[in-house]
């Protein structure tokens, strides 16, 4: 049942400090991009804000994740002007990425519920 967590590549080791469960960064990035395309810093900030500072994603794991997700065909990227007239690379969710997000969310919910049941069970 924990197989997919273990499967994450060694790049995630760096996330130990930020308290992120291995393998969940991909899902969080996909989720963040669900509404609109964003650039790298925006994504990092948003994850930090929404998690109320629980997850601090450092660039050392964020950018490899972008590269990996792009390679998997779940993200597309393009260079665009930012709000303050600078060029930045914007990432957007592809159709495949949307499907992946749905699947991962469902799986996560299923597992989280299962873990909760185990923890709440009376011994």
């Amino acid at each position, binding site marked *: 049942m924990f197989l997919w967590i273990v499967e994450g*590549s060694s790049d995630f080791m760096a996330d130990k400090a930020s308290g992120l469960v291995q393998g969940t960064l991909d899902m969080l990035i996909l989720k963040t991009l669900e509404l609109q395309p964003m650039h790298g810093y925006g994504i990092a900030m948003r994850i930090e804000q929404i998690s109320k500072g629980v997850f601090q994603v450092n660039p*050392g794991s964020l*950018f490899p994740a972008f590269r*990996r997700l*792009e390679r998997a065909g779940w993200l597309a990227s393009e260079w665009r002007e930012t709000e303050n007239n*600078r060029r930045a690379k914007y990432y957007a969710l592809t159709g495949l990425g949307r499907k992946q997000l749905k699947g991962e969310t469902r799986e996560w919910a299923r597992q989280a519920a299962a873990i909760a049941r185990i923890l709440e069970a009376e011994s």
Partner: protein
Amino acid sequence: MALLKNLLAGLRGILQKERVEREMDEELGEFLDAAVKEKMRGGMSRQEALRAARIEMGGVEAVKEQVRAASWESRIETVWSDLRFGARLLRLNPVFAGAAILSLALGIGANTAIFQLLDAVRLRTLPVKNAQEIARVAIDHRNGASGNFSTRYPDLTFAMWEQIRAEQQGFSSVFAWGPNQFNIAPGGEMHNVQGLWVSGEFFSTLGVEPVLGRLLSGEDDQPGCGSPGATISYSFWQREYGGERSVLGRTLTVNRHPLSIIGVTPPDFYGVEVGRYFDVAVPVCAEPMINGEGSQLKSRSGWWLSVMGRLKPGWTVERAGAQLRAISPGLFEATLPPEFNPGNAKHFLQYKLGAFAADSGLSDLRRDYEKPLWLLLALAGLVLLIASANLANLMLARASAREKEMAMRMAVGASRVRLIRQLLVESLLLAGIGAALGALLARSLSHALLASLSTQHDPLFVELGTDWRVLGFTTALAVLTCILFGLAPALRATSVAPGLALKESGRGTTQGRSPFALRRVLVVSQIGLSFTLLVGALLFSRSLNNLAGLDAGFRQSGILVTDIDFTTLNLANEGRIAFANDLLRRVRAIPGMDAAAIAEIVPLSGNGINHDIL
């Protein structure tokens, strides 16, 4: 689809490397910029914000390295650059590289050569279709047999073969065959070639197709056939007839009897005997004509044939063997040689036929040399082990010389795994070059080895091709030696504390920690192995020397042995002694001739005859 995308993106990463790198720089710069702005908005000064953002980000180069590592093409790139770096190091150090490659080439070459021979005589199956269906029919535990045994595989007599053909059930077809030497000179000096007696089913059972004409079939092998056709092998066709198509219908004299050539077998077919070849195949029915009064065909105690067959679908060797066992009592009853005394007959009637897997053919070469070859392979393996240990020592010495390089690279952020990988790639480069040279060397070595076993009188033939097994073996050797001599030094070289190594300028840290423990182990094991080999070699050469100097009981120098065939003179029985005596008298008259004698069996020739007389 995703895979294709990944592939294309990876190719872009390789081909447009600069652009991809520039974009990455730009993206990271943008990220840093945004972070600084954000922090300034929170009230930091520009200086403070920049510092804080940099600390958060960690090293820019480290991040870039991590991004690169997330894509497959970077692996290829690092291996490629490691290879180039390794090659450069080797070029800088030609003496080391030369010694390493040479010792590896010799070690791997010797191992590959021996394995090539083993592969050819032991591991490969017969070059016929569905070789796993071929089985040999022979008497299980034949002891106390009596009679005249000729050919290399005197399993059965002709009478038994006829019975087996008629009564067996487990084989879709069976055939009999026997190797023999044929004299194909029409007159004058003998010209012996490798011959085969084959029954009519031989080629069809094995599934051999002719490259020219037709092969011997059931029609050619009829009892009492007068002057049948002969099938020749591809190599004989090339050698004796220059591959001319007009060879069909030409006459071939076999022991002074004319036969006409009807067809040629394919180039890769050498018969069912591994380690031998054949030139001419003649039907079994021609044996009485060709051998004349020495014929074995009618004799019930003439053992000269070997029987093989192709199993019917669904029949196993065991099942076919059981059926043969079941028919054995009747079969041996019917083929009992009339001249046998009661004792011999009792033995004979208790014989049981059996079936034996023969998918890799028969081979006296295998029987005689398989064990020595495995032993030789083990010895060559030891030599390679010593070479590896030696090389490991050299690599260790190099490793301590490169300690500062390693420490420096670790200090600027290289991971230990990355450094070990690079060192292993360097070792693999050495092992690869060594193995390639070794494989070349092996070709001539294995031929030389075979030539040392082969004599003019007893020629051997082994198909010494390089097949996937040999290639796999050599590759495995290369990888194994690379790990043997490369891994420990690589682990050692990278287990330095960067600060310590850099501080202790020049002195290195290997001395500091465990002084030469690994190298001592290597040297001790090298000496141990070398001694084992040395003692073994000494004992071996001593035994060989003893054998060569063995007193055979007669003076061994100045002896000439000739085989004389005077069957064509058609002498009557009583005239032969007189002829031989006359011949001896004339030979003795030759100047310089001390003495001459005639013998049925030349001493130490390995031939023998055995008859029970009680």
